[in-house]
């Protein structure tokens, strides 16, 4: 199969969806670049599948416009939109062989048998299914089934590839392998891809751009790097990263950010209440810093995660390289590098410090 030069931009323009009187997606606008791999990430029930189904045409929009390659498609049938979809539980036709499953769309489109067979074999080769074409889905493993589903999607050479949690039925090891394959596949095929997941590892590793959805609203739309290092809101900060970012309520007096008991955590010109965020791996163990008591330690081999209690009683996570001189001690003192401190508004959850200088 040749790389498709047909990748199309998807523009969502104030797209809205409600089921009956329940609004699921308030007006949402975003542009997914041609040929990009966009991952839609969010907690369960936030409307990821609904958004994907609206792009596919399986679910009508309540309001707004969807443009694919500049054409307004929100009123088109799925088959006319040039999208193909891979479903979470494969959705293969159980009574058809692998070859028939892959070729069904071509058959419906009335493509001659010879060409059909050639294209089915081509698609099967891309996902390394060549010798299983005569089997039925029931005789395949989960990973093989998902490959069939992917082959079925790419056989029509779609402008847009849609994935709805395609890896979540696979075990961890297989998932890693399929992730790599999907990444390679995307580079080969080049179709604009939208990939829905609630697994942040999938999002960080696969995405060109991550769209974080919360209750139907876009929390942040950016590269994995931006999402991780400049979370736009408290929601994103808490959602991305494992162990999660430490979030501490502080009060700024114009020179420093202080705990309620007055202990200074980091220097800042901020005045008023705020939520301070810092990732566990960015905390430094220093000679004369913030005193903390180790409550619990988890040795993960490559590194250790410590749960420590601050003077105010709040517990936070600290990631340290294994074998640091703190491991045996009960007490340690912490330093919060200013460049890695994130500040959020406690009421709106929006990011307060917008300095771009604090990369890495």
């Amino acid at each position: 199969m040749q790389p498709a030069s047909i990748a199309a931009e998807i523009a969502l323009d104030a797209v809205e969806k409600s089921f009956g009187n329940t609004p699921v997606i308030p007006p949402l606008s975003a542009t997914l670049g041609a040929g990009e791999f966009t991952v839609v990430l969010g907690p369960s029930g936030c409307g990821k599948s609904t958004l994907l189904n609206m792009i596919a045409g399986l679910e009508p929009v309540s309001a707004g416009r969807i443009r694919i390659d500049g054409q307004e498609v929100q009123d088109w049938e799925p088959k006319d939109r040039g999208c193909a979809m891979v479903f979470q539980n494969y959705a293969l036709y159980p009574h058809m062989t692998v070859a028939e499953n892959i070729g069904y769309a071509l058959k419906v489109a009335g493509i001659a048998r010879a060409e059909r067979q050639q294209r089915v074999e081509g698609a099967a080769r891309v996902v390394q299914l060549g010798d299983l074409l005569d089997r039925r889905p029931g005789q395949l493993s989960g990973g093989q089934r998902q490959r069939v589903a992917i082959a079925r999607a790419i056989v029509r050479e779609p402008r847009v590839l849609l994935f709805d949690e395609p890896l979540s039925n696979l075990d961890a090891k297989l998932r890693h392998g399929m992730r790599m394959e999907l990444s390679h596949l995307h580079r080969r095929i080049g179709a604009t891809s939208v990939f829905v997941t609630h697994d942040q590892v999938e999002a960080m590793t696969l995405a060109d751009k991550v769209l974080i959805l919360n209750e139907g609203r876009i929390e942040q739309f950016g590269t994995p790097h931006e999402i991780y290092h400049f979370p736009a809101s408290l929601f994103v900060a808490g959602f991305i990263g494992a162990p999660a970012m430490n979030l501490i309520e502080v009060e700024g007096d114009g020179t420093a950010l202080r705990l309620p008991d007055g202990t200074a955590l980091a220097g800042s010109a901020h005045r008023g209440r705020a939520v301070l965020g810092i990732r566990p791996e960015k905390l430094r163990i220093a000679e004369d810093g913030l005193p903390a008591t180790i409550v619990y330690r988890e040795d993960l081999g490559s590194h250790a995660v410590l749960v420590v209690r601050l003077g105010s009683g709040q517990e936070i996570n600290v990631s340290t390289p294994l074998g640091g001189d703190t491991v045996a001690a009960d007490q340690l003192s912490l330093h919060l590098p200013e460049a890695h401190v994130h500040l959020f508004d406690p009421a709106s959850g929006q990011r307060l410090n917008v300095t771009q200088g604090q990369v890495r």
Partner: protein
Amino acid sequence: MIENTKSLDRTANVILAVGVLYILFPLVITLVTATQSFESFLQNGFSFIPGTYLLENIQIVWETTQLPRQLLNSIIVATMVALIKCGIAFTTAFAIVYFRIRYGGILFGMVLVTNLMPLDLRFITTYQVAANIMMPVNALLDFFGITYIVQTLTGYRMNFQVSVLNTYFGLAAPLLANGTGTFLFRQYFRTLPADLSKAARMDGAGPMRFLWDILIPLSRANFAALFVLMFLGGWTSYLWPLVAASTPEMQTAVVGLARLSPGDPGQIPHYPAIMTGALMVSVIPLAMIALMQRHIVRGLTLTEK
């Protein structure tokens, strides 16, 4: 079983054996009597020793009674019931499950309610309607005054008369009216992954294409099960065919079988012939069950492995 002791096994086997005997006893009597001549039956009464007159008895039934013709009637009626029922049940379930119908739940409820109103309950009304299927139309025309208007305008009094008594349609139609099949298909469709229809839509298949290429092939076992159940229902129903068909030529085999015993109470019935008739009436449904057994079980368990 949790416990696996010998004595328990033996007890279970004995209970099973008793049950089997209990069920088989009348069948054995039927079978054995059908092989005896009328003379030996008159001398010995019912016995357990098979005779050699089965073929002769079949000949008697075949040549002197209406049963062959009535068997044909039964086949036609039961097949009509089964086929039409499969068609209606499949399409209604398809509509209920795969389309967002307003009031779909209420409609399905009404379909199910038909099961609470068996034919025996609405017997007389059914008969009235069968005697003139235009009756409801006449009533409606009356109710809205159309009959009156037409009569005053043209002098013609509308009163349509179409009877389906004594027709195959009249025999089959009332037996069709229940929701079991719709329920069966609906439950089966709901066990299928919801994404299947979405995948078909993405592949460009419209509703009819989805029905034809995917749903029907997947429902084969359910069709077989429903067909057999409805065929048996049509074959064994007695009361409705008894009143809906007034001539022996239109009666079904089960009704005809009951008519084999003589009306005259003083006469000793030709039991061997009657039992032979009973065998002949049972052979077709038996053969059907034997052939379709596997599908019936699969079609009724609702879950695919």
